[in-house]
């Protein structure tokens, strides 16, 4: 009986080559980027709104929309193109800009999410529970106290000014780093690994790029 020999190496080689091509970084990294982007977006959307309870400026949903992935020669990065996210993450010291003396801290809902120059405000020193604090205030009303003298004439005695503090003024501010504003390294790693597994599953379905 003649022996037979079936050579399947060429078919295997081709299949393996296709699988290998399908697992190259330029092919896998977009899937990783997509998965990790969604991880970041979901994380941002779940973050609590501002501590003061002011009407939301939708900062974190904006960060979610500003989140994309980008391929690099060495891999893939996640970028969040929204000012302020880095400061929330890393913290640090804030000082007034050039030519300015104070930073503004919103004291009322109307001020939150606005620049002080959008309003017609006055500088004032305000008593805040016994502390005299610099502030920017909106003067809403002025009531004049008029008293009658013994001669029967009226004279202006005092003014009571109705003020609303829009911003407290501070010379600097410090924020502690808050790593919880982005997913943990473990979550990112796990998500990336899952994306690679999904890519492998896709390659097994399709046989890899032709």
């Amino acid at each position, binding site marked *: 009986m003649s022996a037979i020999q079936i050579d399947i190496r060429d078919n295997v080689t081709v299949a393996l080559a296709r699988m290998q091509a399908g697992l190259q970084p*330029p*092919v*896998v*990294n*977009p*899937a990783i*980027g*997509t*998965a990790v*982007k*969604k991880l970041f*977006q979901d994380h941002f*959307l779940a973050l609590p709104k501002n501590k003061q309870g002011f009407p939301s*400026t*939708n900062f974190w*949903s904006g960060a*979610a*929309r*500003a989140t*994309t*992935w*980008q391929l690099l020669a060495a891999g893939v*990065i996640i*970028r*969040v*193109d*929204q*000012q*302020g*996210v*880095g400061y929330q*993450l*890393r913290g640090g010291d804030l000082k007034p800009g050039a030519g300015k003396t104070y930073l503004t801290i919103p004291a009322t809902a109307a001020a939150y*999410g*606005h*620049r002080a*120059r*959008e309003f017609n405000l006055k500088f004032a020193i305000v008593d805040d529970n016994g502390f005299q604090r610099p502030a920017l205030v909106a003067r809403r009303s002025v009531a004049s106290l008029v008293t009658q003298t013994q001669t029967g004439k009226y004279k202006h005695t005092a003014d009571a000014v109705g003020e609303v503090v829009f911003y407290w003024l501070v010379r600097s501010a410090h924020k502690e780093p808050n790593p919880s504003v982005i997913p943990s*390294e473990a979550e*990112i790693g796990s998500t990336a690994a899952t*994306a690679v597994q*999904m*890519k492998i*599953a*896709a*390659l097994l*379905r*399709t046989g890899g790029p032709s």
Partner: protein
Amino acid sequence: MTLSIPATLSDSARLFAGKNLLPTALDTAGIRTQIAASVRRQSLFSARTLLEDLLGKYKTGIGDLLAGESDPATARLAIKEYFKSIGVTPSGETGELTDLASDARINLVLKTNVQLAQGAGHLIQQNDPAVLDTFPALELVRFEDRNKPRDWEQRWLEAARDSGDLKAYAALADSGRMVALKNSPIWDSLGSSELFPDGLDNPFPPFAFSSGMWTQDVDWDTAKELGLLDDETEVQPREIDFANLFNTEPA
């Protein structure tokens, strides 16, 4: 994990940078009926805004927002200071959208244009051929609450009927989720002003003015569970006519 500041513009920022200024005296309805959607996508305009300087200020502000180099309050202040410099003040009704100098109008122009550029950038990434075999579908989800939300589920069903995507229709009916394949024509119908008067005529979010909805990628297994495909399906990328969709070719 390394954290750093991006050195290059995102796709969204690049796409927006290529837009031309389009001064127009038309109102919103007139813009929609008299200026083709493809021209609108390639232009920066605002209803009844003929001042090219104003559009230029908006372009700068929006570009800075997209690059992460400014914030909405600073961008709005720059526009308000421009109006002040030319002697224009708000009429007093700060919620009036037809008042070019009102906070409401300025916020709408800034926010809508930023989000449109972001939506376009996401469309490009979502349809990267290297992604389709792992994330072949998109889900319409709520990113922001609204006091008076639109009935997006009803709009989804109408868009599914209009586009003929019965699987997307069934996905919502069966699972409560608004999911469709990335190359589904439902993404054109969802923003169609012929179907929905407040539609923005783009196949990417925001699909309507001041919408809090956005899209997110959906993985293969989930798309399969929802009945959108099976293991034999080969998902083709959505055809994107960049010449008519954007003014700038992607990198």
